[in-house]
């Protein structure tokens, strides 16, 4: 038998039909939806006069545009309110499970899927959101789709996909103090570039990845799309199984044993080949931060912004335009630059371990006067744990403002906007122009680096604060 990658095994097991010189008809096990990319898909169903084929395979939650204060009150913004109401109507009409605002499991779609145990190894998962790649941490093929495809999944539980190529990224060795999974992925993207993964599906491997918790793995898989890759997965192992055991939607009793036996088969065969491979040494990775307007523009916090040497034509023009937007110069040091806002949250770093790491760091300290500090849990469950563990008290004591769950300032569809011209160091995933509000300037970093910035008021390597 031919040796196969894990990606190939899962993909091939979900092909209903292959079209010669065309895409595969690809079966979807789980479909997550939210209020922003679903209404037009539901409208499409109505126009065609078709229904949702397998409503039990779709899970809904409003997350993108919801306010993060007063969630028990009517949403003030008319358009946001309409989208959330439309989601409720559609879920009711078609019998789709909705984790609504204020319910126990409301939250960012990519946070609640794993925490409920809906996301399971070997599955194919899609959502009208590019950070669906998060679920790859469980050994799934998970990726973002457009609204036309959301409609296809509603109507037929399938989409038409050309199979991507395979890339493996191996990271071996022990991480240094103050270096987190966010730094690993920002480092990889800075090496491969914001487009280097285009056309590929990734597998992350190596001892460094193996030693990460599930939440840390999710942070890595989440940002696969920021290299242009459709998604990235990590083979499931004991860490995965321990995480899932006892979760609400995880199999129970005998079913658990049978399923577990299958999950244990989910790995890349030893002699399987990849179309492209990269390897990195964990010892080379340090706390990272971005300085430009795509996630590939990242450096070590203690480094300088790269010069334009060797660049020409439209590459140089685009690079300088990006720095101009940020208000930075080539060759400048990152450390010491003044910051106005910090944001802890999003599907990248809005889970309990992220909040713990910030709380532990700022415990007994105060945020700098020039900093506005927002912390937005990824879900109600995360919020509940953060309160129970006393983290919220620590954070509030340090001057952080805790808000209610949602995508919030990651994409600023609600009122959580960074003002024009201001600098935000953010645990989210994108530093695009205006991403956190028109004119806002975003620098991506780990929760730990964000905590250090909050305390000092300027760009800081978290290791420098440890040492003091």
């Amino acid at each position, binding site marked *: 038998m031919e040796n196969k990658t894990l990606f190939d095994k899962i993909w091939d097991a979900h092909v209903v039909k292959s079209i010669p010189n065309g895409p595969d008809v690809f079966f979807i096990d789980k479909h997550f939806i939210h209020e922003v990319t679903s209404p037009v898909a539901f409208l499409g169903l109505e126009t065609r006069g078709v229904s949702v084929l397998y409503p039990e395979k779709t899970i809904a939650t409003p997350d993108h545009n919801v306010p993060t204060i007063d969630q028990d009150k009517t949403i003030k913004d008319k358009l946001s309110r309409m989208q959330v109401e439309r989601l409720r109507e559609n879920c009711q009409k078609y019998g789709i499970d909705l984790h609504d605002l204020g319910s126990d499991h409301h939250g960012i779609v990519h946070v609640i899927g794993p925490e409920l145990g809906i996301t399971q190894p070997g599955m194919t998962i899609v959502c009208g959101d590019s950070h669906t790649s998060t679920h790859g941490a469980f050994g799934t093929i998970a990726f973002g789709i457009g609204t*036309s495809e959301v409609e296809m999944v509603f109507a037929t539980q399938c989409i038409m996909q050309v199979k991507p190529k395979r890339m493996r990224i191996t990271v071996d060795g022990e991480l240094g103090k103050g270096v987190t999974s966010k730094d690993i992925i920002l480092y990889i993207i800075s090496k491969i570039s914001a487009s280097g993964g285009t056309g590929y599906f990734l597998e992350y491997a190596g001892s460094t990845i193996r030693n990460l918790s599930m939440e840390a793995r999710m942070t890595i898989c989440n940002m696969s799309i920021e290299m242009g890759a459709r998604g990235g997965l990590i083979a499931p192992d004991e860490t995965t199984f321990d995480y899932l055991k006892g979760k609400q939607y995880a199999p129970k009793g005998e079913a658990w044993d049978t399923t577990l036996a299958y999950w244990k088969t989910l790995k890349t065969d030893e002699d399987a080949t990849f179309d492209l491979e990269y390897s990195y040494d964990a010892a080379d990775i340090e706390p990272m931060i971005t300085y430009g307007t795509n996630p590939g523009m990242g450096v070590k916090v203690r480094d300088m912004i790269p010069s334009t040497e060797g660049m020409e034509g439209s590459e140089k023009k685009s690079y300088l335009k990006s720095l101009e937007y940020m208000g930075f110069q080539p060759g400048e040091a990152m450390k010491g630059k003044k910051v106005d806002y910090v944001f802890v949250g999003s599907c990248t770093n809005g889970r309990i371990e992220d909040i713990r790491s910030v709380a532990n760091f700022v415990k007994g300290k105060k945020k700098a006067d020039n900093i506005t500090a927002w912390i937005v849990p990824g879900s109600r469950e995360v919020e509940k744990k953060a309160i129970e563990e006393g983290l919220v008290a620590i954070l509030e004591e340090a001057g952080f403002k805790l808000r209610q769950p949602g995508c919030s300032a990651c994409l600023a569809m609600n009122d959580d906007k960074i003002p024009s011209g201001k600098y935000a160091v953010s645990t989210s995933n994108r530093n695009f122009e205006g991403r956190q509000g028109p004119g806002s300037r975003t620098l991506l970093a780990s929760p730990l680096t964000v905590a250090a910035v909050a305390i000092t008021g300027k760009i800081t390597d978290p290791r420098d604060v440890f040492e003091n």
Partner: protein
Amino acid sequence: MAYDKFNVLVSRVVPMSAENVDTDQIIPARFLKATERVGFGDNLFRDWRYDSEGNPKPDFVLNDSRYSGKVLLAGKNFGSGSSREHAVWALYDYGFRCVVSSFFADIFKNNCLNIGVLPVTVTAEFADEMFAEVEKDPLSEVKVDIDAQTITILSTGRSETFDINAYKKGNMKNGFDDIDYLLNLKEEIGKFAEKA
């Protein structure tokens, strides 16, 4: 949703050389709040096209009266980032039927093919020649022939072939979308689902 059939397009070109143009630039998140697919063209490239008071920025290409056409000539890695199909709705609604680049982001390209905007991937040299020609003469035109899978710069005669799979080509030519195809497969899908 059905769209206009695509066969042969002869058009002027709107050049936008910036690299890594993400879908947040094509349509910012705050304009994604609609529940119907209407009016997205008004907010295409909103923050590059208008200042904070809503006045057109004169140096942006869509506000430059020299340029118009149904073909957008874009820089490398066009359409990266968010999977929002609204970005393609905005391009289509504004009047673009074809985007030419030497490198497209993956989800964006899929979304284009699903709603009837033809993504044409050309070599970097061909893109450079297109940029040079339209800069020299904004009235210069290209011809995109989906059947022959060719794009031709009419002023220089330079032509290149482009890739599109046979299935998607058929869809573009007929204005079909994938759901029409998938709905006809319901029986096979049902059998597959039982097994899964």
